[in-house]
């Protein structure tokens, strides 16, 4: 049976996250972007909504079950408020979900509860590398097995909270496959660089991370001796990013629609001109289309459908183009005012471009 109605529980979560996004994140977003600084209090408030905690079973300290669908619903609702804060609130997902997907029972029990039980702490992950031709399947960072440990070496980039992190999942090439390794932040040979300055998500602290023969015990390879399948990690990241792209695009759509209905031109409202009204209609259509693609991919992940990975890939491909177009249109509709930093649309446009480069920065 097809259905497009969230469960009552999901709806309650969407509503709660939506209120947080609108009342807490949105009003703080501009200043956070200008100051390149997030309020810890705000992050903690988002964390207390319990999106991640509710997607983990009791044995690992959570109070629910994993659901990709619930995850994308929450991610979209939160990103509607502000992308930087959403990525920050959800940064521990990058550590916990790979464990949940691929960890051995022992790894899950050892590492997940500490993250879940506590207040928000910067548990993070490092996938991206500073190379234009970056390919998550062909990493430059390598893992070398030496007796009972691994040596990790390479250069990572855009690692959230790297300077203050408790621990990371670091992705490296091992036996020609991409594998995740649990790496404590105080490991020797691990160095976080300067806070990175990017086109968008200014408020999110992102760092380069250098690994120089970082030595970790062999039991820190996710999944144990044989490692794990990397695809579910990517699929999880793609749907999370697609959902957030929908949230950002929806914010830009609502804002520019309201502006167009308010602003006068030649004796009528801007929105009464077909040139603008059609842009808005296209934006709304594309947003809804990508939302449905994302939902379907998430549902396929939950149902363990064979083509879930492929569908998630289609979703992120569509999302990357959609969010760029929609946020660009929003700036265009506000025109001169859209270019001014008094309005948030230019920020959303800068953040929108990021989705093409955020692989591994979000997971649900």
């Amino acid at each position, binding site marked *: 049976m097809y259905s497009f109605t969230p469960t009552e529980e999901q709806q309650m979560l969407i509503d709660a996250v939506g209120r947080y996004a609108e009342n807490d994140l949105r009003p703080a977003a501009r200043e956070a972007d200008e100051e390149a600084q997030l309020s810890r209090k705000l992050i903690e408030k988002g964390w207390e909504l319990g999106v991640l905690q509710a997607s983990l079973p009791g044995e690992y300290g959570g109070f629910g079950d994993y659901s990709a669908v619930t995850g994308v619903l929450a991610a979209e609702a939160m990103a509607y408020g502000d992308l930087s804060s959403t990525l920050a609130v959800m940064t521990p997902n990058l550590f916990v979900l790979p464990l949940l997907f691929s960890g051995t029972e022992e790894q899950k029990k050892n590492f997940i509860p500490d993250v879940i039980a506590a207040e928000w702490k910067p548990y993070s992950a490092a996938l991206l590398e500073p190379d234009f031709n970056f390919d998550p399947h062909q990493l430059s960072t390598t893992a070398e097995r030496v007796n009972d440990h691994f040596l990790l070496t390479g250069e990572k980039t855009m690692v959230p909270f790297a300077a203050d992190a408790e621990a990371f999942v670091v992705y490296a090439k091992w036996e020609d496959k991409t594998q995740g390794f649990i790496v404590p932040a105080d490991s020797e040979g691990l160095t976080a660089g300067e806070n990175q300055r990017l086109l968008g998500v200014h408020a999110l602290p992102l760092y380069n991370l250098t690994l120089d023969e970082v030595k970790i015990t062999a039991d820190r390879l996710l999944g144990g001796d044989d490692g794990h399948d990397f695809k579910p990690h990517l699929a999880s990241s793609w749907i999370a990013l697609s959902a957030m792209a929908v949230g950002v695009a929806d914010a830009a759509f609502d804002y520019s629609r309201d502006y167009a209905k308010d602003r006068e031109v030649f004796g009528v409202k801007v929105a009464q001109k077909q040139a603008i009204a059609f842009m808005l209609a296209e934006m709304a259509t594309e947003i809804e289309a990508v939302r449905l693609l994302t939902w379907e991919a998430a549902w396929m992940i939950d149902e363990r459908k064979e083509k879930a990975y492929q569908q998630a890939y*289609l979703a992120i491909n569509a999302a990357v183009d959609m969010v760029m177009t929609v946020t660009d249109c929003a700036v265009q509709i506000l025109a001169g005012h859209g270019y001014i930093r008094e309005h948030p649309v230019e920020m959303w446009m800068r953040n929108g471009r990021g989705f093409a480069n955020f692989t591994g920065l979000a997971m649900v």
Partner: protein
Amino acid sequence: MISFEMPQPLKQTQNVVKTVAENMMRPISREMDENEHEIPWEYIKFMHTATKAMGGTSMAPEKESPEKAEKKEKRPSINYQNLMVMVEMLSWGDAGIYLCTPGGMLGSAAVAAAGTDDQKRRFLKRFQGDKPVFDAMAMTEPQAGSDTSAILTTAELDEETNEWILNGEKIFVTAGHKALIDSDGFIVVWASLDLDAGRAGIRSFVVEANTPGCKVTKLEEKLGIRASDTASVVLQDCRIPFANILGSPTIDKSTKGYKGAMETFDATRPIVAASALGVARASLEFVQEKLKEEGIEIRYGIPRQKLSSLEREVIEMEAQWRAAWLLTVKALWMADNKMTNAKVASMSKVKAGEVASKITQKAVELMGPIGYSRENLLEKWMRDAKINDIFEGTGQINKLVVARNILGYRGSQLR
């Protein structure tokens, strides 16, 4: 709960209709296209017999009477979703031949939506007979396409005989010839009770085959969907019984009647979207099969800068096709669940019309000489697909509907 599981009955429909498409449509696809105005009788008779055997009379789901609806268990209806799959797969077979399917299309939908019980009996029963019967919607006029309020066909009441007298010219009547000449069918004619009343005066009327004063004057020659006839119909002092009017015969200030007629679009537009997606699906599958044959694999999951141009095109086609399909199924799921769906219905039509045009055009491009050749069907599908961005409201009209919807504007505020 959000779910994308195709219900079992829909899967069955998909399989059954695919078999029909493969056996009854594809083999004559080229021939029908090359011989415009020929009628695919074999397909028509088969569909008529098949529909009758399944107990159906019309492709459009009937509105249930309240008692009947109550009796049924609470399981939500999937009739429109089922129709979507059917239309998609028939159009996958051949979009032109699909439009020749007997047994109630747009005209019946209008009768089913706005007709009284008596009218439904009088007009819809004929589809259950031994011979295939067609119906059609006559809306467009030479001077009025998208702007249906500008129609000039009039309906005047002769109080002595209690008949309506229709005068005017209708063009682009899909299946008009089959409804009026080739079968004992009917057309639903849009006409004005009072040209000064504007929209408020517009009503629709059922004109049956063999009614004096109603003539098919022309068959159009078209870019695509050539198996489907597109007729011009002239109404000259055409007299029909008073009881053939759909809706109220009196004009009040409200445009309720007009709006009511427009509401049938909320169901029919996603169905046109489904047809578009069927054609696009055929093209996309052709491309995918050809690539497979050549040993070219699409590398899903690698970063975009590493994709070949071909891979990127195919991935884009797949994603956009699926996105349009999901909008369409959502619109019809809403219709099945009696939710207001005007916005999503028009969104699906906008998106599917565009996507189908782009996919079929791209497929011809990607397949090179093979795509352009009339030896294959790709070039035909490209011609067929285009109609879906035009009829049942052009892409632009549907965009306008979406725009008014999201802006909360009336027609007077956003023209």
